[in-house]
């Protein structure tokens, strides 16, 4: 299956990456090459095979239900492009 420019733009929108039609045109052959390459997996008979979810057996661990972190507001905001009044700042979302 190959993707057209419109599909590339739709994926870009889903991925929240701003993209012009020219950029989508430029990216399209690369994406189609990669999709063509991975599509050979269709040859493999996987009937009755479970998809892998855990690569190395591990067990789920319990811990005491106590607060082990927190009270770091200023640390967390220190890297924000915009922080105001102890919050992350973003463009207005409510009119």
């Amino acid at each position, binding site marked *: 299956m190959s993707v057209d420019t419109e599909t590339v733009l739709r994926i870009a929108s*889903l991925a929240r990456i701003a993209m012009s039609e020219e950029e989508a045109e430029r990216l399209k052959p690369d994406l189609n090459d990669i999709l063509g*390459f991975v599509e050979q*997996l269709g040859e493999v008979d996987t009937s009755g095979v479970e998809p892998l979810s855990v690569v190395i057996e591990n067990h789920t661990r319990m811990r005491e239900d106590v607060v082990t972190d927190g009270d770091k507001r200023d640390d967390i905001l220190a890297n924000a492009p915009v922080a105001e009044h102890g919050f992350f700042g973003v463009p207005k979302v409510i009119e």
Partner: protein
Amino acid sequence: MADIIDLGVAEIRDGFRGGQFSAREVADAFNDAVAGAEALNCFIVTTPEKAIKAAEEADRALAAGDVAALSGVPLGIKDLFCTKGVQSTAASHILEGFVPPYESTVSGKLLAAGAGMLGKLNMDQFAMGSSNETSYFGNVISPWKRNDGGNAPLSPGGSSGGTSAAIAAHIVPAATGTDTGGSIRQPAAFTGIVGVKPTYGRCSRFGIVAFASSLDQAGPMARSVKDCAILLEAMAGYDLHDATSLDEPVPNWEAGLSSDLKGKKIGIPKEYRVDDMPEEIDALWKQGEEWLRDAGAEIVEVSLPHTKYALPAYYIIAPAEASANLARYDGVRYGQRELPEGANLQEMYAATRAAGFGDEVKRRIMIGTYVLSAGFYDAYYTQAAKVRTLIVRDFDAAWESCDYLLTPTAPSAAFGLGDLSDDPIAMYLNDVFTVPSSLAGLPAIAVPGGLNGQGLPLGLQVIGKALDEQGVMNAGLALEERAGFTHRAEKWW
């Protein structure tokens, strides 16, 4: 005495403890070497003051009689590791200026063991690449040159290309790498050094910028197997902050090193004989069999029938996980923000990500988004996850008849910068021998074996059973002792 910068981790540790030189002398020597190697572009940020501070502490500790495992040893840290108070970018623009308020578990363990930090090493952006050409901060140049008199700049491999180049150039004795599909092993092979990818879960991923979380593993890179064993001991261990880290005791790998392979069986996977592989690599592979036989091992042929599907499965699974992991870069909480005049929140996200990610990162996010999108998920992602199960089963079956697998590390020697950058698939094929063991979470080592006709290093890989880092490093040691690889790049920088 040899120049300090020619010493490895064990030699520095022991020489420092024996009073042959002070930790401060070591730090000064490497700081100078780093400062003199800007042409290689190995570092994104250098931290000479941190190396000096750790050295002074080491010197005081020695005087007080309480040295730690890595006291006196300066290291490089790949820029994928968050380092408290020091910019950590994953070689991306979107994280430019990000100064973590916390330390990754692995780098924190190394520093707590007394190591100093020389700086943050350049890499492929978000660890996506096999040539170190996707860094926002420019290509790393390999210290190696072809012996044909040409001056073509070569790739140090990737994604841990700053790490590999810095170690090969003797501007750091050792450094951290990370490996998702080969990012420790392929650059180690390209630059004639040793790299270990441990079992998935051996090292905590906490504080390592996430690429593909079911595959990412930290590991050591150095100029000897022993140095890797020393570092891995300090890096590994269970971490409350990473639910996938393994609650297993950390063996004393250095003390357990032995190149006696009597009674061990080495599998040669027949599917790794790929078309178009240079004859020199095939010859080195055969030589590797001889070396391991000489160490007492028996060689057997094994089959890993799904090998050819590992790379396509990887290029669904890794981008799928990446598209989810990289969703966090939205210009709100950290890193760069792009806010066009009058843009709303959604437009800000999209503009930030368009400006902040490089082409290869965008390609992988796009592929990942596509294969996870409604209507395509089962055909791509679920099928890839099923193929991954079959790849794991292949290895399980191979372990019925052997203890380790011997393969080449990469299908070619280092290529020139720019040679493959227009062809993503050709670039992806670099990891054809390293990706299957990544998908299965298995430990593996890359060891230099010799030089090709152009004077460039070629590597051998040993893959082992889950948690058998000791066996993998022992087989690596047997190869190292017999290969006697002492070549180094002639200094031109």
